[in-house]
């Protein structure tokens, strides 16, 4: 029997003004990152409501990453600063509830950092792959 390699499902929320373009650049430069990364474009990283992250896990994501502009570079001046606080508290809470802390991450990736985008995704996928499937924040009904 052939053992298929476990491939984690990753949801990446990418800011339209930076990391989404960064992902584009990674593609143009033919920098490979795993196809399991599903990108959801958001107008700003601070558009990401904690509920989005939980819903991604509910629907079967094994890891969720939020990519925004570098602090100070927000297209809307300060959105990513709010993201930073919110996610700091949310991730700390998830950790407190016993959800593996490696499943969530925030990275600042600019439009010019195609290489960083690819490297970040490769690293995140590897980290999550090492953890295996998300069992603690899943909704079993979704597997039907």
């Amino acid at each position, binding site marked *: 029997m052939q053992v298929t390699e476990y491939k984690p499902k990753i949801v990446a929320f990418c800011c339209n003004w930076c990391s989404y373009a960064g992902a584009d650049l990674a593609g143009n430069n033919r920098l490979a990152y795993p196809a399991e990364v599903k990108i959801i474009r958001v107008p700003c990283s601070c558009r990401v409501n*904690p*509920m989005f992250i*939980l*819903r991604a*896990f*509910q629907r079967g994501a094994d890891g969720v990453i939020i990519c925004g502009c570098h*602090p*100070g570079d927000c297209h809307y001046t*300060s959105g990513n*600063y*709010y993201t*930073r*606080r*919110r*996610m*700091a*508290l*949310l*991730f*700390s*809470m*998830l*950790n*407190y*509830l*016993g*959800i*593996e*802390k490696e499943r*969530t*991450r*925030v990275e600042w990736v600019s439009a010019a950092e195609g290489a960083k985008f690819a490297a970040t995704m490769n690293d995140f996928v590897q980290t999550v792959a090492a953890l295996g499937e998300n069992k*603690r*924040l*899943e*909704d*079993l*009904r979704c597997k039907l």
Partner: protein
Amino acid sequence: MQALTREVLLDRAKALFADGTVDRAYGWKRGEFDYDVTPGLFRSVEEMEKEFVFDDFCGANFSKYLVEETRKGEGKILVFLKPCDTYSFNQLLTEHRFDREKVYAVGIPCEGMADVTKLKAEAAEGIRSITAEKEGFVVHTLYDGDKTVPRTEGLSERCLVCKSKKHVAYDELLGEDGEVADSARFDEVARLEAMNADERFAFWQRELSRCIRCNACRDVCPACTCETCVFNNPNSGVESKAPVTSFEEQMFHIIRAFHVAGRCTDCGECSRVCPQHIPLHLLNRKFIKDINAFYGEYQAGAEVGSRAPLVNYTTADLEPGEAVQRGNEHA
């Protein structure tokens, strides 16, 4: 035993009704037994004389009721505020949830409120009556005679780790004001932080799996004042009524706590009302503890108009990745 008696409060209320300062009053109503006190709105001195009580079972916080009640009528509402209630009161003012002009707030000292479940556990079945004595709560049981529960064992958890005996809002104060206490309220959070992820997960599964989604925690919370909650809104995509899976239990409680993060004054009402005794305050306190550690000490409701940590930032805030580490390390 409370420092002030029912009569002191009642006399003051009578005077305020008599001189026309207020035309209705929030206060505690006598129940069927000694302990099942109901928060109520009194419209006359006569009603108050008949039913008003103030004793060790008056835990209910009236602040949230003011949101709706101040929209009605022209006259002022008298409200009795214990020290912890004043923080909720201020927080609601900060969020412009009610008209301060329509409220006459009387601060009253609090010596801590009893947790009936604890007393019931001590007395097994059947409480004939409960009296608060110097040595503690004397429970007159139906079958086992009298039992004395030391005060420290009969008080609510939130009162045992009371954060403040100081009133932060009032029009007048009855009795003595206290001080902000050096509370041990984060000890339990720290104990959980010290566990490993598997243990923490097991702990919360055990607790949250009891949730029946009655929404009492949300509905009593003075910080939860949305006109329509996201969990009731059919268009939100997350509307839900029952804890169908463990995910939904976690989702509800994470979002509930997150939504009040930075605004929660740690009044402890959520845990008081939970029919399943889930220690919900441990979620809220985790946020408070993290906020204090990451962004500096902040007590929601301590002053009107303060900017909540989640609608604020500094350019030097720590990164979420570090936060998760720190969230555990400072334990």
